[in-house]
């Protein structure tokens, strides 16, 4: 239990990912799938950011001339990785939405089952 509280953020990460994964796989609506995908991605970003956080650290921007103290600045590396992940995420989301619009133009529906029925005809 002690461990659970000290690592509360990881628990939240896992919950967010379960929500995202569930809606990517189980939801029938394409837009909901897209939103689920975005939530899954934010879960992962949260994971990386929280492993790079330091207790009592400042933002990783140096001020003044004194030499930087490693313990007092948050980890920049995980932040870079996640900047990349965010941008990749929005690119994927945009593309998914474009495909969804195109599918809607064909089938007049966002419902996966209905689209599959349409395709079988």
């Amino acid at each position: 239990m002690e461990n659970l509280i000290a690592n509360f953020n990881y628990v939240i990460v896992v919950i967010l990912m379960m929500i995202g994964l569930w809606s990517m796989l189980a939801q029938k609506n394409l837009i909901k799938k897209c939103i689920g995908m975005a939530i899954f991605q934010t879960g992962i970003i949260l994971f990386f950011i929280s492993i790079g956080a330091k207790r009592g650290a400042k933002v990783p921007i140096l001020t003044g001339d004194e030499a930087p103290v490693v313990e007092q600045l948050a980890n920049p590396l995980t932040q870079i990785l996640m900047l990349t992940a965010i941008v990749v995420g929005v690119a994927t989301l945009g593309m998914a939405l474009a495909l969804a619009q195109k599918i809607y133009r064909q089938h007049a529906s966002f419902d996966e089952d209905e689209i599959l029925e349409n395709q079988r005809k």
Partner: protein
Amino acid sequence: MLLALLRAVKGPTVIDRLVAINVIGTKSIVLLLFAGILFGQLEMFVDIALGYGLLNYIVSIAASRYYQHRRCLEPEPPAGREAQS
């Protein structure tokens, strides 16, 4: 903020949702600056707060524009109101 979320979920009108989300956005800016004070590096957080406010404005405009086009600035039809949770 929870109260605003409740309005956003329940509707019943889109105006409620728009205003609720705007309230959440504004509160977030305050919280962001609060975080900046806690860090003792307020100047770093002002930039983000500014960007945040601008983007929040655009989202609100886009959303209201959507409703304006759809001419549905009235209580939504029952189909759209089945909010759960």
